[in-house]
């Protein structure tokens, strides 16, 4: 085995392949998280993974570490509970945009207010993937979904503003920019307070195809051409990805 595959030690190989669709970006985020753990040389007994419900929410099931698959929207309070009970643990939330920002949005608001030292990795596929492609809190304006056949008329939630309002760590990346994604997760895991990594990722089956992408590769090329890396700003613009500057209060 080449060194590039050492991250596999964090996964239960007998639980693979994942049930995700061919080309789904979720696997790429799962992999990047493990690569970040590997690079930080984490001890498996030192990390706990918490997920909610949804395609992204399945993530907790593949780790060879203590993991909790919670009820829909409740990953953050469970993670906060674990951290409060044992502050020596690294508690990492891996869940979807619908789970974290829709039904669980209130928990995010209060966890950032408390600045609980947990890391949250959000699979932002801009859709409710698991239930068939309904509009989600991150769906862009005018995007067609199963529940917005004429295009979404509501403004997507400004996650960055919520996280930054309480002076927590915010980074945004995509499943095309893999080196940047890994770096964002590493920086989030190193952050002393609450950290949030917003990962733009492809749901080809219940979102991409409807909006006109041929396959997952085409969505990755769209991320490549549409997003510019800016790691030297306090606030990212819409077409930027980056690790935003953070100053301790």
């Amino acid at each position, binding site marked *: *085995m*080449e060194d*590039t*595959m050492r991250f*596999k030690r964090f*996964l239960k190989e007998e639980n*693979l*392949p*994942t049930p*995700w*669709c*061919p*080309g*789904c*970006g*979720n*696997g*790429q985020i799962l*992999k990047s998280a493990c690569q970040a753990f590997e690079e930080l040389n984490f001890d498996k007994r030192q990390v706990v993974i918490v997920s909610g419900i949804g395609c992204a929410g399945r993530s907790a099931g593949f780790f060879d570490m203590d993991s909790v698959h919670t009820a829909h929207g409740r990953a953050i309070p469970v993670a906060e509970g674990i951290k409060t009970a044992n502050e020596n643990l690294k508690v990492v939330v891996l869940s979807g945009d619908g789970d974290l920002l829709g039904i669980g949005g209130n928990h995010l608001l209060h966890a950032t207010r408390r600045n609980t030292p947990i890391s949250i990795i959000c699979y932002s596929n801009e859709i409710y993937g698991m239930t068939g492609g309904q509009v989600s809190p991150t769906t862009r304006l005018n995007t067609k979904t199963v529940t917005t056949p004429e295009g979404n008329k509501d403004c997507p939630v400004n996650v960055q503003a919520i996280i930054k309002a309480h002076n927590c760590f915010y980074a945004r990346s995509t*499943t095309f920019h*893999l080196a940047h994604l890994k770096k964002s997760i590493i920086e989030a895991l190193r952050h002393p307070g609450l950290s949030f990594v917003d990962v733009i990722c492809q749901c080809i089956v219940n979102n991409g195809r409807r909006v006109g992408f041929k*396959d*997952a*590769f085409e969505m*990755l090329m769209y991320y490549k051409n549409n997003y510019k890396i800016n790691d030297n700003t306090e606030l990212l613009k819409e077409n930027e990805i980056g690790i935003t500057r953070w100053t301790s209060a």
Partner: protein
Amino acid sequence: MARQRKGEVAINHNYCKRCNICPQFCPTKNLEIVGGKLVSYDRCIACFACERYCPDLAIEVVKIYHVETTPAG
């Protein structure tokens, strides 16, 4: 001398979902889905793009090291 391949692509067919991401990233057209199965040819330059972009851990690239043979002088 024919160009030597620099990598061996090990494909785990139990994990591969034939999403067709890796063939489109490969700079040497070394990968292709043929008859519903991912196949690898002998043009690998060991750039690791396929392994990196595979969302399903189905690919491991192993570098091949060729020993230089220089005529004894």
